[in-house]
């Protein structure tokens, strides 16, 4: 222990004795660690964002049923294909017990929202959907003020509407109370009963969640009878009550729908699993890519350390000779040089972590939210451990060279 301490002490003395060279070595490790921590930080930030947006689309419990063209061999029945209808939604809710929530949705064709001479334009135009309260749960909407639909609203095909924050912004002045007010939806007055939360997640200056704000909901029954005059659904989404029964729920829903459609497969039942799988595979390839970058930067810093250590040994051949002459064993010399490499790598690692923290803080403050790197503790641990090991490994070869020097040859070295 004492020996080790004195080794580190000697290491410090040596480092101080060669300030420039030590500084260069420390910088090598520092860059390695910093780049590694930053890369991982950016990656983790990116995936955190992606994962959040997957969650915002309903998470992996969500099941999508949608109408699709019939298969080729069923072509003759295409004409009688009903698509998905409200009746299908009712059948599912009666027969598929594993489905926790069932959300029938009808997208209005060419919706127009207006009030007092103002029209809602939005970034991609207005979107008005006929829905049930299930959409709130499946797509994670929350009512900011007001209320959700009541059973009576559904039953009576009431002309009530829940609006997104952007719609409210466009149609109402800032102090104006939207609740209870009427807005025109395709020239029909609808009473506002609720306003959704405002959702924000920025990617640069772009709010990736604006699609949740530029929206309005009316009861699906109202949409079918009074606006679209058809109960064809645009979407029929389900949420498995239990994630571990996802497959069974999908199978049950497929069976019920096939039954409903008398065997005409004009629908498609999907889950978020593929998205999740692509998330996982992208993540894996990023991790590999990031690992490669980190590996290269560590290799570079390792080569830097090794170079500087070799230079240091070259410069200190005489010293090695003297130490050997007064009784240092090859192992003593080896440990001395490894201790120096370790001390330098530790200093470099600490500096690298400090630089990475500072950079991440600065980037977090200057970059638009959504693309900022995360301060991940695992990145620090990994970056630190890797760089220090790179330092030690890079120090071992020069240390062996030093240990092998012949004492008298070393003493004669000029």
């Amino acid at each position, binding site marked *: 222990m004492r020996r080790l301490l004195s080794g580190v002490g000697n290491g410090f003395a040596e480092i101080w004795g060669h300030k420039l060279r030590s500084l260069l070595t420390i910088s090598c490790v520092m860059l390695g660690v910093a780049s590694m921590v930053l890369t991982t930080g950016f990656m983790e930030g990116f995936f955190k964002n992606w994962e959040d947006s997957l969650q915002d689309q309903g998470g992996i419990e969500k099941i999508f049923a949608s109408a699709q063209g019939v298969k080729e061999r069923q072509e003759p029945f295409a004409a009688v294909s009903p698509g998905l209808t409200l009746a299908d939604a009712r059948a599912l809710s009666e027969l598929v017990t594993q489905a926790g929530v069932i959300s029938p949705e009808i997208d209005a064709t060419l919706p127009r929202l207006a009030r007092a001479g103002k029209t809602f334009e939005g970034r991609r135009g207005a979107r008005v959907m006929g829905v049930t309260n299930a959409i709130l749960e499946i797509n994670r909407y929350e009512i900011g003020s007001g209320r959700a639909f009541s059973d009576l609203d559904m039953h009576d095909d009431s002309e009530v509407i829940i609006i997104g924050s952007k719609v409210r912004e466009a149609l109402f002045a800032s102090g104006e109370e939207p609740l209870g007010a009427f807005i025109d939806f395709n020239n029909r007055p609808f009473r506002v009963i609720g306003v959704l939360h405002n959702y924000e997640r920025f990617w640069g200056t772009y709010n990736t969640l604006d699609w949740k704000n530029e929206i309005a909901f009316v009861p699906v029954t109202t949409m079918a009878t009074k606006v679209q005059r058809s109960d064809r659904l645009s979407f029929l989404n389900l949420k498995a009550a239990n994630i571990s029964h996802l497959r069974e729920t999908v199978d049950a829903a497929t069976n019920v729908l096939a039954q409903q459609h008398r065997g005409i497969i004009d629908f498609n039942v999907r889950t978020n699993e593929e998205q999740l799988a692509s998330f996982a595979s992208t993540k894996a390839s990023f991790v590999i890519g990031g690992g490669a970058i980190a590996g290269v930067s560590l290799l570079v810093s390792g080569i830097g350390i090794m170079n500087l250590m070799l230079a240091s040994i070259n410069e200190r051949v005489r010293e090695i000779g*003297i*130490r*050997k*002459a*007064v*009784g240092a064993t*090859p192992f003593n010399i080896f440990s001395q040089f490894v201790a120096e490499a370790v001390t330098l790598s530790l200093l470099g690692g600490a500096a690298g972590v400090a630089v990475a923290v500072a950079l991440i803080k600065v980037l977090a403050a200057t970059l638009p939210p959504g693309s900022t790197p995360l301060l991940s503790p695992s990145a620090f641990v990994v970056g630190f451990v890797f760089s220090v090991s790179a330092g030690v490994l890079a120090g071992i070869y020069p240390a062996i060279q030093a240990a092998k020097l012949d004492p008298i040859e070393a*003493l004669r070295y000029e």
Partner: protein
Amino acid sequence: MSLAPEVLRLDRVGKRYPMGDVIVDALVDASFTLREGEAVAILGPSGSGKSTLMHLLGFLDSPSSGEILFEGRPVAVLTESQRARIRAEKIGFVFQAFNLLPRLSVRANVALPLAYHGSPPADAEDRVDRALELVGMSNRAHHKPGELSGGQRQRVAIARALVNEPRILLADEPTGNLDTKTAAAILDLFKELNRLGRTIVIVTHSPEIAGHFRRQLHVRDGLVTEGGVA
């Protein structure tokens, strides 16, 4: 009179330096024995092979031919670590060129051999102080070798060789850079150490200094011969 135990024995030891086409025989068939408690002066002209011989005695170099035995054991069979351990604990070496570490203080230079002891002595600090005091360098303990005169450096080198209280002291011209008074003091120190039982071998050009030693070895063109004061 029974003989004291053998410390070092050389058996037809040769050292040959191949220098391209020319071969330099720095030492030829040297055979002699050093016993415990002996005091030996090695004399000879410049380039005759004295330093070469000293390096072999301190196992800093290996012979090209012949055999060296330390306490009856052939040095050739020892591992480098074993040789290093013996150097650290039993041999003190004063180099002709001092060989101090320029970045370490005088004190740290003197303490160096103790760091390589198998079990560092508990009184390491005291030993360093005593060694510095013996050569009269206590007041310069915190200087760097570069801040010292040649003679002062030589004394530090001697202190370093004494600090591990070696059984055998090998000194290559330890008084070469010293004035007569300091040289005499160092010589007295060596004689005192020898009286206490240490084996001492010094290289010197001075027959007068050699006269203080009971045994003399002459080296000439690599040939070692026993002899009285020349």
